[in-house]
């Protein structure tokens, strides 16, 4: 089984420095890419069917193809979204701490493909170690002529900056990230216009997730067909899957796209911890719908998870076990989302705290029968399109599915006027 993303990652030793990375084939993709036309790189990536690993799952090459290439835009930007703040998600951290040069190489190739001359890594504030390693790796890349002016004598220029956020979940939303990077409030922007046309400082910009960008060198080296062959079913490539919660071995694994949920939980994570039973899982981070027992055999690719009523999201799963109160579990998530709302649009700013307060009151045994109706109203009205960005709709996914699959638990809280788990 091929594991291109993690093949050079081992936490038993320090991560590769530039020389080690080069010795193991590093920056070959860049050398190759610089000999190709930018358009052909975009075509290759589009043909590989690489989909964005940040959660939305949009074809990466197609996203790039919307960037104007007619020479009218002398300034363009490429940005790595490394603001990994989705609860339960820690895959990008592993990629950056394990092999920072892989990200940098992926970014240079991607920037070349859209002919951007400035790139940023927007890094989550708390990722101190990744920050240190990336800073060093960027310095090494500059020294080796992979960054800066006239890269490898090709005449192509690219500057790369590491920008550290201040720990706001909304900065993971690409347009809020752009505002934050401009020094403005981290408030999302309306689309259209899309960042590909009017992004950072109003210039054409591509924002890609770290894992997405890490795939680029391998696609350039091995071709789109190879990449497609890595996937098991509907989707191409490998994916860093993760499991957290009360399993025997929580962690991250690079697996073919489309591995089944059961394989992931039972084979990789070793099944549920002793004494704990499986009740459900959020398959791709906190902002995805619960999947339950009946879904264990579905394949974890974009289409199959969507067909089961959830989203693959970041592919990092949070398990709900049978010793944990689902109301408390969801309350905790909604507390997070309410706190991380940027405060721009009404439904999110006012609706999320309301759901959080209702959930807390149910959890404390102060819930009222009509509360469930109110919660359902919120899950419906905080849907996509009604709010300014995807934060609130994402926040409603665990809640709406919890109301569907664990309704009895909610009702018990209200009937018994207490949390049955306490």
């Amino acid at each position, binding site marked *: 089984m091929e594991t291109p993303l993690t093949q050079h990652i081992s936490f038993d030793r320090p991560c590769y420095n530039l020389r080690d990375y080069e010795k193991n084939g590093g920056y070959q993709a860049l050398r190759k890419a610089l000999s190709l036309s930018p358009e052909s790189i975009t075509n290759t990536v589009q043909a590989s069917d690489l989909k964005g690993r940040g959660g939305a799952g949009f074809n990466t090459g197609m996203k790039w193809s919307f960037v104007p290439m007619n020479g009218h835009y002398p300034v363009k930007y490429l940005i790595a979204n490394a603001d990994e703040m989705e609860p339960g998600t820690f895959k990008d951290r592993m990629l950056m701490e394990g092999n920072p040069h892989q990200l940098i190489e992926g970014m240079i190739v991607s920037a070349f493909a859209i002919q951007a001359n400035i790139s940023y890594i927007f890094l989550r504030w708390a990722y101190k170690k990744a920050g240190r390693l990336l800073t060093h790796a960027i310095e090494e890349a500059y020294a080796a002529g992979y960054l800066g002016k006239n890269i490898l004598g090709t005449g192509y220029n690219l500057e790369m900056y590491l920008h550290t956020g201040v720990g*706001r979940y909304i900065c993971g939303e690409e347009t809020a990230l752009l505002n934050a990077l401009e020094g403005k*409030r981290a408030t999302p*922007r*309306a689309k*259209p*216009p899309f960042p590909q*046309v*009017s992004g950072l*400082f*109003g210039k054409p910009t591509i924002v890609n997730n770290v894992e997405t960008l890490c795939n680029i060198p391998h696609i350039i080296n091995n071709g789109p067909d190879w990449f497609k062959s890595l996937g098991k079913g509907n989707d191409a490539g490998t994916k860093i899957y993760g499991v957290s919660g009360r399993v025997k071995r929580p962690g991250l694994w690079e697996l073919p796209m489309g591995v089944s949920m059961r394989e992931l939980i039972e084979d990789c994570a070793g099944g549920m911890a002793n004494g704990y039973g499986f009740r459900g899982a959020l398959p791709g981070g906190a902002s995805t719908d619960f999947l339950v027992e009946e879904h264990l055999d579905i394949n974890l690719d974009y289409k199959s998870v969507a067909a089961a009523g959830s989203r693959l999201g970041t592919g990092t799963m949070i398990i709900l076990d049978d010793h944990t109160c689902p109301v408390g579990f969801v309350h905790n998530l909604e507390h997070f989302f*309410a*706190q*991380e*709302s*940027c*405060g*721009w*649009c*009404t*439904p999110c*700013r*006012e*609706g*999320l*705290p*309301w759901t959080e*307060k209702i959930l807390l*009151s149910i959890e404390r045994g102060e819930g009222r029968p*009509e509360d469930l109706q*109110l919660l359902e*109203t919120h899950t419906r*009205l905080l849907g996509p*399109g*009604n*709010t*300014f960005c995807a934060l609130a709709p994402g926040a409603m996914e665990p809640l709406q599915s919890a109301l569907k699959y664990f309704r009895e638990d909610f009702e018990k809280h209200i009937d018994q006027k207490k949390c049955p788990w306490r």
Partner: protein
Amino acid sequence: MPLAVTIMVRIYIDQKPYDVKPGKNLLETCLTLGLDLPYFCWHPAMGSVGACRQCAVKLFKDENDKTGRLVMACMEGVRDNMYLSVNDTVAHDFRSQNIEWLMSNHPHDCAVCDEGGSCHLQDMTVMTGHAYRRFRFPKRTYQNQYLGPFLHHEMNRCIQCYRCVRFYKDYAGGKDLDVFAAHNHVYFGREKDGVLENEFSGNLAEVCPTGVFTDKTLREHYTRKWDMTMAPSVCQHCSLGCNIIAGERYGALRQITNRFNGAVNGYFICDRGRYGYEFVNDPGRIRQPVIRSEKESLNLFESLSGILTEGKLIGIGSPRASLEANFALRRLVGEANFYQGIPENEAMLLRKILAIQHSGHVYTPSLKETEYADVTLVLGEDPTNSAPRLALALRQAVRTKPIENIAGANIPLWNDAAVREMIQDEKGELFMAYPVNTKLDEVASGTLHAAPEDIARLGFAIAHYMDNSAPAPEGMDAGTLESARRMADLLLKAERPLIVSGTSLFNEDIIRAAYQIGQALEKGEKKAALCFVMPECNSAGLAMMQAPSLAMAMKAAETGNFATAVILENDLYRRAKRSEVDRFLAAFKNTIVLDHLENDTARMATVLIPTATFAEGEGTLVNNEERAQRFFQVFMPKNEHIRESWRWLDEFRQFRDGTKPDELRELDNLLEELVNAMAQFKGAEMAAPLSDFRINGQRIPREPHRFSGRTAMLANVAVSEPKPPEDTDSPFSFTMEGYRGMPPAPLTPFYWSPGWNSGQSVHKYQSEAGGPLRGGDPGVRLLGGGIHFSNGFQSTIPPAFERQTDEMALVPLPHIFGSDELSVHSSSVEGRAPRPYIALNSLDAERLHTAEGVTLRMRIGDQVFDLPVMLKNELPEGVAGLPYNLPPMSGITWPAKGILINTTS
């Protein structure tokens, strides 16, 4: 603006077809169509950002789509063949739920909230049908801030629509109001308590859809909007003539709000205009006629008939009095004996400006049109202080070119956030030439801080670069020449070049230079826009009467031909040196002064006549673009002595000529007479419908139909309801009775429409949301007047300024708060006025062995002022700046030179 043929697009709203204008968003389209769609964050002057989610409608893919999806109307452009529903249940329920979300933290304190009754949030809440509150948790609370004398802050009421920061920061360029914190604890305020610095802060009270920012001066004498008697009026505090609504109760003026005029002020007025009104309520008002005579117990009639019968009258008019008042005086004293009442230099500058405006070589833009200039040159004005609303317009003008530049990006202009994102800090060309830093410098692409002579020379240089036949100034430094060449190039290439100049520096050469540039830009029918700032609200109107200046009056008085001076609403001690005015007044046996506020001239009167302010009377003013605009009496003063100056002056004829009371003039026939006497005013009589105007035989009520307490408010005096005063001069009634529908634009006393109690209802009065008022924006331009203003232009270029060793050249620096005679009577405005100072370059200060804050003695002839030094290093050496007309620094004859003495050394 060229007329473009608009091809309408067809949209279907709730199955009904409508042909609508393309390029608009669905929200403004629905409002234009008269549909009630609630909104908060959208503002017609500021566009859409999609934050509040209140204007949700259902959009269908096509006519067969029955499901549709919710979209925010403000963020969706109209397209041909669009199917949508406003009444759709899902859309309606969402809008209602959105209000419930907003109200979850709103304090429900309407009964004690200043906004109550004219609150957009109240209106929208009722409109969506949200009534029952399901949120059962504690509301979040905030600490309020002290924001200075103009605005009261009550953050708990905030619904986070972001309009305040979008207006204050994005639109008005303010720096000290922002949004802080996040999620459901977003806070709108200053970094810490303190005075809001921006000159347009008062607009927040109207921009805020609820009671977060409210008018603090109204709060001092609060009354509900529905309990005010209101009239359409015109601001008295600068030459731009912004339209306002003034409201009264119990004989006190309570509030000024913006009155939309699409060609002038649009949605916004400045803080001087909003808060300067309290001179009307001043305890120093003149309340009864005063006769200062050696003969005892002479009554007014006896006294006046004696004086007037003797004749030999000289009349001194006023730029702050109405056309009618000035005309009535002119008629009383005779054309030959009527003088302008302003210094000679000011009168000369205004003559030049009028000659330019009537020359046919330049175009005089409306205030609104200045917003669309693509290249602007400001020669010798600081609009933020001399004509504030113009500064706000120029801030929009610098965005014109960048917005045009992104036309290819397919971003609709109403999409404010996207437009701002794409243009970033790009600014169009604005060049500011003024002796000191101005607030507009921060958005300017170039500045020149120089002496007035050198500002004029820059102008001549620009004209020369555009047209070789215009003479070139000699001996200019290379840097300034380069600026001039660049500016000439930009102006020539501009589609809509604008030159702003005016009287502020009292420099004729600057005005001539502006004209020279205008002439150089003239290309056939296409003429450059020249906007001239003038000193006062009726400076243009008075100057158009073509009477000689006060200096000429003083000369005439020396002949001894006059027995009596009749001085109209004019404190001459602000116009000339004290000794000169003293000598002038001493030349008469009698001095009749008509004014509304006690001042030094009034104190010298032998007969003092109390007059009405703008709030107590009607009249017509001509603004800097020669737009004649009518202001209407807001309330009938209880004090019968307080009458319009024109009425008093007309009544004077009774005493002199024995005119019978029924032959006395009303406003209409006085205007008619004025227009017949002076053709240049033709059209002024049409500035508003005449007094006999009725709709369905009905008058237009000054009071909203909810006006309360009519039978009770004077019950402490008498239980029977007093007869409401009759208005013989306007089509208004002083009650809530009358025509209920929409009056013509110049006769709109307040904005109200069913379901729309707040000022947001103005869109109902517009031909399209954000567009001109129905029937056209009020005011009549007098530019076609067909008179010839003599044009004695010489093309001489002044020599460069040279520092004198013995005396300083003095330049007057106007201040928005302080330089205007009337508005400083408002304690809120007075509190924002600077203390007197003398501004110096630090090199000059060194020469005088003085420093910041140290008092210097300044001598202008026999006038002596002790003033603390304020260092302004951008001032050229040898030039000192003085706050213009800031009490007690009035009576200086500009331009002036002064000797500075360090009395401490």
